[in-house]
């Protein structure tokens, strides 16, 4: 029986499907599981995924493309773990990841996920673009290659290849230069960090990526890493130590906050704007980091920080996790999570939606366009806001 090998076979049946996992911490609506918010069918709720896993592994239902799409529409945002009242709640996202890896090992995955994984196997990025082009985002910014400096600035696939995210990568580089931080980037030598590959269930490919990265970092003498993306931050901080790759890993907001407080980054001006901040899941719910980005925004004169109704542990995911920034299973409707989130941001009266993750950036910027709010709500990365007030824009 397939159920026998499933990692969570002993606790899978304990999901009562009571539906708490769909709610934000303040219970205000039933839209906080991104996949359920998009389709509003019980099968797409977290409880639905667990029941369907059990039904599939029990042989009550067969594998179908639709079943795979239901599983892969999970963005690993951990809202379910935040809200499930039962004691196995800390394992839920990993239970769904284990279902995906059952599918991966049988080769039965949606073709867009197959593409995603094969592109990474060959080119080290989900877009399948040439490895040689991974450093092109640097352009003429003078951001140095890594040659043993104190910090490795790890950019990640989205920051390296997605046009909008490349701007963020460049801006952060300029800010770090201005702060006089000794750092360098790997450019075309950089490879995928594997966080999405892990949440997509390709365990062996993830291990290979992690081990190769750790070996490369060790050979280069890397000890401190600052990442552009919370996804890279999460896997390097929580998973790499499993392959004895222990480095001092920070998300860039944590570094900027320190640079600001140490006076290495002082603002030449303020920013008179109402700003609302979107908590990225891999910074917030995965790693409990809610305060640092807010400290940065509050330290900028003129900024009025307004919280969305659903924030911190109750934030609604932008829908880009679990590979969905590429596979787009949640796209195509006004109830796509990114569009719901864009409307929520706009409702606060803010003119800037501050993000701290390249995935959120791409998802929310598209959503703002789709909602026709382009002129009224600007999506800006925190590094871009800091750059602006440091006169670097």
């Amino acid at each position: 029986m397939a159920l026998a090998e499933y990692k969570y076979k002993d606790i899978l049946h304990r999901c009562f499907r009571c539906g708490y996992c769909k709610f934000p911490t303040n219970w205000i609506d039933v839209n906080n599981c991104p996949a359920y918010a998009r389709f509003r069918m019980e099968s797409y709720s977290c409880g639905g995924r667990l029941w369907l896993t059990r039904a599939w592994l029990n042989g009550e239902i067969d594998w179908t493309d639709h079943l795979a799409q239901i599983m892969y529409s999970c963005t690993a945002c951990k809202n379910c773990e935040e809200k499930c009242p039962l004691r196995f709640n800390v394992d839920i996202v990993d239970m769904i990841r284990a279902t995906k890896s059952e599918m991966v090992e049988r080769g039965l995955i949606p073709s867009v996920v197959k593409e995603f994984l094969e592109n990474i196997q060959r080119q080290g990025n989900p877009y399948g673009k040439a490895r040689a082009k991974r450093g092109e985002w640097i352009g003429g910014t003078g951001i140095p290659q890594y040659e043993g400096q104190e910090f490795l600035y790890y950019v990640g696939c989205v920051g390296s290849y997605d046009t909008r995210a490349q701007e963020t990568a460049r801006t952060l580089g300029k800010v770090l230069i201005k702060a006089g931080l000794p750092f360098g980037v790997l450019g075309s030598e950089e490879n995928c960090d594997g966080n999405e590959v892990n949440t997509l269930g390709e365990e062996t490919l993830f291990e290979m990526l992690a081990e190769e990265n750790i070996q490369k970092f060790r050979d280069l003498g890397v000890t401190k890493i600052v990442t552009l993306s919370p996804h890279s931050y999460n896997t390097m901080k929580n998973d790499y130590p499993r392959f004895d790759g222990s480095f001092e890993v920070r998300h860039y907001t944590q570094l900027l906050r320190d640079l600001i407080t140490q006076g290495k980054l002082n603002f030449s001006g303020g920013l008179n704007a109402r700003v609302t901040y979107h908590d990225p899941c891999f910074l917030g719910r995965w790693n409990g980091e809610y305060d640092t980005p807010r400290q940065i925004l509050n330290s900028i004169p003129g900024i009025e920080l307004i919280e969305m109704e659903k924030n911190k542990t109750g934030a609604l995911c932008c829908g880009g996790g679990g590979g969905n920034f590429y596979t787009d299973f949640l796209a195509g409707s006004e109830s796509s999570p990114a569009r719901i989130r864009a409307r929520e941001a706009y409702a606060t009266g803010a003119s800037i939606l501050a993000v701290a993750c390249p995935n959120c950036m791409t998802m929310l910027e598209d959503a703002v366009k789709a909602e026709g709010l382009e002129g009224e709500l600007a999506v800006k990365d925190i590094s871009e806001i800091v750059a602006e007030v440091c006169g670097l824009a």
Partner: protein
Amino acid sequence: MDNVKKALAEIVGEDHVSAEPEELYIYSYDLGTTEPHRPDYAVAPRTTEEVQGIVKLANKEKIPVVPLGGGLSLAGLAVPLRGGIALDLKRMDTIIEVNEKARYALVECGVSQAQMCSYLERYHPTLTHSEPGAPGPATIGGNVAIHGQGDLAQPYGFSSDMINGLEIVLPTGEVCRFGSCSISAGWFTLHPLPDLGLFLGWSGTTGIITKVSLRLFPCKRIRGTGQFVVEDEELVPEVMHKLTHTQMAEDIIAYSQAIPPFTSGLHHITINIGGDSEEELEFKQKLLWDDTLGEYIRRGDGGFLGFRRGLDRPVVAKTSDWRKGGGFEYVGAIMPVDTYPECYRRGREISERHDIPYTVLGRCIGMSHAMMFSWTYAFNRADPESIRQAREALHESDDLALELGGTLWKPGLYGQKLVMERMDSNTLELMKKVKQLLDPNGIMNPGNWEVA
């Protein structure tokens, strides 16, 4: 069959109708022990007009329609016994209006209990509704449809006694409105127009509730729960009777359970009270614990376990995880309060016979007018034998409730049969006529309340 799916998609949009095995699997299950039955379609409408379209289509094609909110009835009421359309109403979740002065909330049927609590706490802190203690996603529409009871049942009765108005889609697709809303814009009262109450307690077999105007009640600044405990079950009815005499409580529940072992054999009576000031709170506490229950405390027959501030709403569905089994189901019956001792003793026997730790609970409705008594049986979803044991225990509890002179609340098929066997024939005949009148094509949740 595909033209039906195409027609449904035209009504609700491509994304909100499915005939895929995955959706049909999920919508075939109740969370309890009821045998699953596959629907042919799962549909999630957003508006009353869409519900009308679906029902009209179902009439044309003679396909069953089975409405559900949270689908948490734990009695299999939303299991599509004869296939057809599983109608998931949770997308209809707009809170249309809260009228502070007349203290009512006009909501779409799919508004969840947790959403209602959170919304009132945030925007109308002086108002509250009778929250049934079910898991958060249970809906307002579903709760009134099954004559549910909440944490204001003691002073104000069933949730279905708290209705100011209803919007119903008839089994033939027309929309009807009942109460003041049928003649004016206000949804402030259900009575006194000619009474057409044909849609509650019917398990969705006579129509679909799409809008509910629900009475709200004053919400005191400080709310909390006090606990009293007795060992002799014979005391429970008289204690409940005396407590209701004070008219100070918001919710009175007596429960007894085998787990944790130190509570086994004891009867815990929880009493919710509220006060805007410390004085009001202390006045009520004195009336309840000292003046009313003081005699029991002095005689040593009953003990005061203290008063804890803050209400834990919605109640966490932890019962399902007691035996790490992921499931429980209960029989709820509306019983005379003085049958509590017998319900408890006989209930314990049933549990012990089926090797299930006993859990019983009696919630007072009105001034000891009646109580909702529930026998709960946890089971292990991965162990068919434990499901079978639970199902047998549930049926024995159905029999017991009727044997002790009670009535069954939201009965599954087994319970419905027992009730109909005992019901006087003229009433039964009238039920049949009403059903035929309203649902000539027999599409509404067929299999339930089917008079032979």
